[in-house]
């Protein structure tokens, strides 16, 4: 009985996402039939075919990898800086008073403003890295600082009474408190890094980039290419997020 229930549950976990995917592909196909123009809306089949064609070329992989590296670079820099700033501002309130307005301003400013500014300041390749970094920094910073602030005051007092070393205080008291905030911040920030990084590529047009391909598809009205590259971006984003969740899960279980 138990075995049957388990098998049923397993098949449901496979079948449900498949059914949802098929439903939305059906809606897309239906919309294509109604619009009747590949220029305005290519069908799922046309998009898949074009993506398949692109995947046969070396350029597709080179451009995808270049974009991926830029965004990972910006994301990593944002995480490192965010953690350092988060720790410092979480511990020193005065520093927080100085840093908060700057990072809150970054959070509230439209990303396009930063991209345009970065176009003036930086090289084509540097713009997406910088923009991804800017998107990640305030998220990681605020999450880490919050994790430090939310550390159980009773445990901090206990550590003080029992003369915990700085290392033990950091590893045994602060780290477990900060960890869930940091992990949540990382997954949120990664999504932002992707979206903003690709948007920055569209405006800065690095030689080998997904953003440049998206821009070209707009210029030459190649809507099928736009869809195919967008599917590639979404797929890469999902893979990267799954990889991050896997790696963070490893940290979590330690």
């Amino acid at each position, binding site marked *: 009985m138990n075995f049957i229930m388990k098998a049923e549950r397993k098949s449901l976990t496979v079948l449900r996402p498949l059914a949802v995917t098929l439903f939305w592909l059906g809606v897309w196909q239906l919309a294509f039939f109604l619009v009747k123009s590949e220029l305005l809306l290519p069908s799922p089949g046309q998009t898949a075919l074009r993506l398949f064609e692109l995947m046969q070329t070396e350029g597709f992989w080179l451009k995808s990898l270049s974009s991926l590296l830029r965004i990972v670079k910006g994301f990593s820099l944002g995480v490192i800086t965010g953690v350092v700033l988060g720790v410092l501002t979480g511990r020193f309130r005065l520093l927080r008073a100085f840093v908060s307005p700057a990072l809150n301003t970054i959070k509230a400013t439209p990303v396009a403003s930063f991209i345009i500014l970065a176009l003036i300041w930086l090289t084509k390749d540097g713009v997406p890295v910088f923009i991804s970094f800017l998107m990640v920094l305030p998220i990681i910073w605020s999450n880490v600082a919050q994790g430090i602030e939310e550390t159980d005051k*009773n*445990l901090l007092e206990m550590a003080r*009474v*029992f*003369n*915990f070393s700085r290392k*033990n205080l950091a590893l*045994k008291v602060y780290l*477990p408190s900060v960890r869930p905030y940091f992990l949540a911040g990382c997954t949120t920030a990664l999504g932002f890094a992707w979206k903003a990084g690709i948007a920055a590529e569209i405006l800065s047009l690095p030689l080998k980039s997904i953003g440049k391909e998206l821009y070209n598809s707009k210029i030459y009205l190649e809507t099928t290419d736009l869809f195919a590259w967008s599917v590639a971006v979404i797929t890469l984003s999902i893979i990267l997020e799954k990889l991050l969740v896997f790696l963070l899960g490893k940290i979590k279980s330690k």
Partner: protein
Amino acid sequence: MAIKIENISKSYEGKKVIYNLSFELPEKGIFCLLGESGSGKTTLLRLIAGLEEPDSGKITGLEDKKISFVFQEDRLLPGSTAFENVALAGGAEAAKLWLERLEIDQAEAQKPCTLSGGMCRRVALARALAFGGDVLLLDEPFKGYDIELKKRIIPYIVEFSQNALVVLVTHDESEAALAGGSIYLSKDR
């Protein structure tokens, strides 16, 4: 040098918890703090531990004294095992000794969330004893113990008090009977 509590007062948000309290604590032995809930027993322990400052008055004789504490709450690190919780305060050797003496060594690899309330209390007591010191502050340390277990554990506290001062907060008269001296804190101020 004896610990002197001189005219101390403490208020929280305008509410007087301790008012103009003076007494002397011996250097060694068990001293009991009695009184109903809200009479300021825990506050007094916190003042002795130096975790809070009195609004007025002073506590002298604590300079250079090592103070250990069993808080009213267990305050165990949730991500660490019972052994780690004790060893972080008193080292591995002392942790092993006290976990064994307090009959909690069989659960030393377990995290606090898997222990019963009474077991967590014993880990907290083991941590304070393993840390050692000149003054041991115990805020209702035997909560959740059964009578037989308490009978087996109390001699260790008595033994500890031969070389240190143990300040015990309790509502239990049999525990208070162990004390060489005591003070009753009243809510009426």
